[in-house]
């Protein structure tokens, strides 16, 4: 089964076609990487898939359901979660509450129940807090268990976003440059984390600039250039593609 199917997807900003008539399929359980030079349309694609943008044209199918134009919260309920290239952590909250926000769809977020703190909320919230603490440990953030988000360094915030995304118990996880700005050992930690997440059965769509990381973890790679598909295939195939080498890998190397 395909986790995601994108058919003739386009997104125009004025005259710019950030994503241009793009079609591809992401197999369930795979780690599917999307690479391409800056401005290739990777983030725009993630924004389309997660419902932040409505496409100008095309169809998105998620686990055999057409989800084109669905709102992000609706997609979240269907099992899609993501992180952001430009960190979107709630700095007004503590770290663990940020993670708990990720589990929002699994608890009763009604106002009435909240105002009266009904027993079922208290119970579910306590359970969610424990899950969030476990997730923080899972991504290696135990030491920030009681920290404010605003006190955390950049690398930790990147992982906090992953923990928050996982708190939704997603079936599909979109990661937009999770290793950007991280040093060597931090990148290695992220690699192990992505492999763990995929092993647990989550389909991962990975946008990343770090070629070593991409080649190590990916099942398949989609190469974008000017919003169009330049190449697609296994890491071996993509690495050997002359067009890719000319347009992208050659420049990076």
């Amino acid at each position, binding site marked *: 089964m395909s986790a995601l199917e994108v058919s003739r997807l386009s997104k125009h900003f004025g005259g710019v076609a950030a994503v241009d008539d793009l079609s591809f399929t992401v197999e369930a359980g795979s780690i599917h990487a999307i690479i391409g030079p800056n401005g290739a349309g990777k983030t725009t694609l993630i924004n389309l898939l997660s419902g*932040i943008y409505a496409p100008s044209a095309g169809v998105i199918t998620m686990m055999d359901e057409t989800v084109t134009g669905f709102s992000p919260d609706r997609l*979240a309920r269907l099992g899609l979660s993501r992180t952001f290239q430009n960190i979107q952590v*709630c700095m007004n*909250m503590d770290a663990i509450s940020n993670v708990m926000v990720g589990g*929002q769809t699994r608890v009763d*977020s009604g106002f009435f*129940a909240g105002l*009266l703190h009904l027993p079922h909320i208290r119970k579910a*919230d306590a359970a969610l807090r424990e899950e969030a603490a476990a997730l923080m440990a899972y991504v290696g953030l135990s030491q920030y268990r009681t920290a404010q988000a605003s006190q955390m360094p950049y690398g930790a915030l990147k992982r906090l976003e992953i923990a928050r995304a996982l708190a939704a118990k997603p079936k599909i996880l979109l990661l937009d440059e999770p290793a950007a700005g991280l040093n060597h050992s931090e990148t290695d930690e992220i690699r192990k984390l992505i492999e763990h997440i995929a092993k647990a059965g989550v389909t991962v769509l990975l946008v990343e600039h770090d070629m070593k990381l991409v080649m190590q973890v990916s099942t398949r790679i989609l190469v974008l250039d000017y919003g169009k598909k330049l190449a697609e295939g296994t890491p071996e195939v993509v690495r050997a593609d002359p067009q890719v080498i000319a347009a992208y890998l050659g420049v990076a190397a």
Partner: protein
Amino acid sequence: MTIAPRTLGLVLLAIGLAAFPLLSPNAFAYDLAVRVLINAVVVIGLNLLFGYTGQISLGHAGFIGLGTYASAVLTTHFNWPPLVALVAGAAGTGLLAFVIARPILTLKGHHLAMATLGMGIIIAIALNNEMHYTGGSDGMSVPAFTIGSWTLSGDRNWYALLSILLLAAVWTASNLVDSPAGRALQAIHGSEVAARIAGVDVAGVKVKVFVLSAIVASVMGSLEAHYLEFATPDTAGFVRSIILMTMVIVGGMASIPGSLVGAALLTLLPQVLSTFEDGETIVFGIILIVTMIFMPNGLVPTLSNRLTRLRS
């Protein structure tokens, strides 16, 4: 079992409220206390909207005014029982807030500030212009609050009723901010896009908290009208909206105790400062500026942060 800090806070607040009458306060002190209590409840509602959710409202006094005049007009001109008028005012205000919330709350920053400012001004003008019903800028008298043959009168009784309402407001608001719904509010403040991705219906939640805070303001406006037995359009005016916002900011954004401190401080300070006569507004302004420079998060969050840092 350990007592949660907010339960302890609620108990302390209840003790404090109950202790006040034991100091044998005079009528003036009671009157001030009642005004503090009314403002405090409104500010708690506004803090949910502004402090927690990050949605500014520069027209919140408009909602107070709608409650005030619903009660004043419906009881005076239509002989409605006060409690029914209060509920009708709250329902009408809630409905109005619901209708305007979606278009208004898609706006951000300055645009939202301007839109809510305009909303408040329009309400104030409408109340001023409906001379026939409201008496215009002269205001109108309002009958005492009665339920059946029972009349709520006397400073002590008003103080008791409003104390109970404040405790209820503190309890429910503390519950809310410590629930999934409250986390959604704070997540919207922190990052709307993150909240949406996490499954929060951002537009819907904004509408809910806007309507909630408007209804709270309306109810307090109704009670204020019956307490003062008088209504003027100033109740709904721009100046009052600004003072309410200042109470939130000085007391502390996203802080329930801060709402109480802000309401108390800004209600009482002008009284204390009246000894400065003409200098009153200047001293008032200086205090605000100094607070904002040294405690940009407001009094209560800043002080509690310092305390926790001292302890560790």
